[in-house]
């Protein structure tokens, strides 16, 4: 059953085996798998229960509906916009369906450095495969690659760079191009479409429009949560859920903020630190022919020439197309005023690539007096250099793909028309850092076998607090360097097994 906090007229108490805070890829998978294992599960979600008919393709309305803080969440200095999903299904409602396993190099590093042997590629393989089968993951057919993605393919071919087609979880896709505003055609094989029905069929209960205020601890053990129903104001009735197990799955921002608000045990001062954002800088190129990048599947091709995932490596940039609808596009283009609008007149002829940084810089999540998450994050010098290389690589790809000119994301020489000018962008990043956007926060409740180095163990158990688990991207000790959804779904699956096993003892 799916219920709404708005229907609550007075404080209520419930009990179950497992209460899950957040219903994105991690929480959604945990909910379905734990319910299937026979546990009585309740999941609490701050956002609305949205369905295909709610997604009207109006950018402004959908931004307000689908994103945390109506899409306005940013780091404290405003340098990085941090997008996070809101609603039953979390970010799986608005993501572009990219499915890529955590790179083997990254997983091996976690095993070697932190003792996470259960995360070696061979150990994770069956879980990845099961998730991919469940979500109907498949490679995008070449004939469905849109013009913006074709530019990237042409650029890679001309430069002899590595890359290829991506895998997605979509079926019945109309290639409308509105993926990041929710799918009107219900083609996303996501939490709402695949996992919620499974969970409900096994007796799970979902409460939407309830914000969890704190985790309840008794004698050092997690015993439930207190949530508040969201209505016209912040003084709605409370929903107290007592449970044998509590799982945090509200994203690397939300879960860390909840842990801090609740004062969860943190003897080694790790909670909220180690924030990785996987931020991206967009670069646009103008063509002589129409691109109409807002149409078709937004991201079907990747360039992996500039990333090797090795710790400390200078090659840490993953490149994908990143076209956007008018608000996102206009905000991303450099400059303002009449010159900005003259660029926008070429909207139909523009292709956009984004350089996404496998960041080693670590930020921090804190909470203000109201309990709202605050994000501190600043790129280190090595990351800034890597990002400069990535921006230059995007510019070179666009020119090699046929662009007449390229617009840099910061106030360097504009426009760029030659490969030599494009290469020079790498050295021009500092001090005028480009505005960045991030949609993949990770690492704020990292796992490690040693409690001095990680908040949780390798199975998502919070060190030293029986009954408390983490089941989202907070667990990842480093950035993944790519889209995290498949890895986060896999976290949910593994934590479900752990919780079911622990509660059966």
């Amino acid at each position, binding site marked *: 059953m799916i219920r709404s906090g708005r229907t609550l007229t007075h404080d209520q108490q419930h009990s179950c085996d497992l209460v899950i805070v957040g219903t994105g890829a991690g929480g959604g998978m945990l909910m379905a798998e734990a319910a299937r294992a026979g546990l009585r599960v309740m999941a609490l979600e701050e956002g609305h229960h949205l369905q295909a008919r709610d997604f*009207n*393709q*109006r*950018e*402004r309305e959908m*931004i*307000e509906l689908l994103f945390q*803080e*109506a899409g*306005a969440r*940013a*780091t404290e*200095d*405003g*340098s990085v*916009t941090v997008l996070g999903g809101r609603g039953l299904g979390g970010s799986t409602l608005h993501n572009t369906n990219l499915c890529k396993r955590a790179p083997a190099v990254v997983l091996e590093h976690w095993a070697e450095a932190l003792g996470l042997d259960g995360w070696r590629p061979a150990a994770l393989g069956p879980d990845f495969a099961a998730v991919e089968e469940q979500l109907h993951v498949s490679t995008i057919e070449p004939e469905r690659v849109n013009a913006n993605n074709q530019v990237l393919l042409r650029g890679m071919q001309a430069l002899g760079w590595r890359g290829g087609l991506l895998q997605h979880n979509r079926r019945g896709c109309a290639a*409308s191009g*509105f993926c990041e505003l929710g799918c*009107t055609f219900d083609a996303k094989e996501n939490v709402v479409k695949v996992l919620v029905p499974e969970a409900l069929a096994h007796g799970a209960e979902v409460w939407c429009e309830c914000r969890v205020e704190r985790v309840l601890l008794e004698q050092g053990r997690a015993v439930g949560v207190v949530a508040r129903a969201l209505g016209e104001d912040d003084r709605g009735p409370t929903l107290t859920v007592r449970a044998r197990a509590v799982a945090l799955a509200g994203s690397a921002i939300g879960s860390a903020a909840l842990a801090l608000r609740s004062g969860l045990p943190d003897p080694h001062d790790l909670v909220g630190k180690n924030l990785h954002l996987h931020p991206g800088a967009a670069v646009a190129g103008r063509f002589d022919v129409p691109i*109409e990048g*807002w*149409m078709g599947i937004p991201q079907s091709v990747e360039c992996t020439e500039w990333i090797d995932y090795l710790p400390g490596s200078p090659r840490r940039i993953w490149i994908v197309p990143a076209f956007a*609808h*008018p*608000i996102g596009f*206009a*905000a991303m283009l450099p*400059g*303002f*005023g*009449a010159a*900005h*609008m*003259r660029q*926008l*007149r070429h*909207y*139909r002829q523009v292709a956009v690539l984004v350089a996404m940084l496998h960041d080693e810089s670590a930020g921090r999540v804190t909470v*203000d007096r*109201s309990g*709202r998450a605050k994000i501190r994050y*600043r790129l280190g010098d090595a990351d800034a250099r890597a990002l400069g290389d990535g921006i230059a690589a995007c510019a070179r790809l666009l020119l090699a793909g046929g662009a007449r000119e390229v617009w840099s994301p910061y*106030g360097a020489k504009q426009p760029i028309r030659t490969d030599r000018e494009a290469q020079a962008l790498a050295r021009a990043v500092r*001090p*005028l*850092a480009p*505005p960045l956007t991030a949609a993949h926060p990770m690492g704020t409740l990292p796992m490690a076998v040693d409690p001095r180095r990680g908040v949780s163990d390798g199975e998502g158990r919070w060190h030293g607090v029986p009954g408390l688990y983490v089941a989202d991207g907070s667990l990842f000790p480093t950035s993944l360097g790519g889209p995290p959804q498949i890895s986060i779904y896999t976290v949910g699956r593994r934590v479900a097994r752990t919780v079911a096993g622990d509660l059966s003892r």
Partner: protein
Amino acid sequence: MVNPISRRRFLRRSLVGAALLAVAGTVGRHLSGYTIDERLRLRVLSPKQYLVLAAACRRLLAADEPGAVSVDEVETALSIDRYLAELPRELQRELAGLLELLEHTPFLFQLRPSRFSRLDAAAQDRVLEDWESSRLPFRRGCFQALKSLAMVGYYGDPRAYAVLDYTGPMIQR
């Protein structure tokens, strides 16, 4: 010790006080120059913040190109006020503070006895360029936040699509 007052006297004093405050508020707004059409019914911004935002949007968007709907016709600043109402209160306060900072930037950072909303267009552009290219991440962040708000307010309106040749939503709802 506080002298007790009668209910009638209390009401009379309260009503007189409220009337005086209302008059003072109206006079104050007129003297400050921050007056707006009261029918706008702002939800988050003060009249002053609204006027600063409207002035900034005119420069950020400069929608005077042929075929472009004007910033005022789209009611960009009012649209942004509606958007701000969807944000957490702390964020509303931060963004309102940003507008106050912008308004007083000529005095605070350039020691000019003026305010952003009263500068001519070229001077307003220079202030915005200073923010955009500042060496301080905070000021660049402020510029980006302001620019993003302007884009939400203007390009969130389908009337602005014409200048982009954007086909818009596939579905009619």
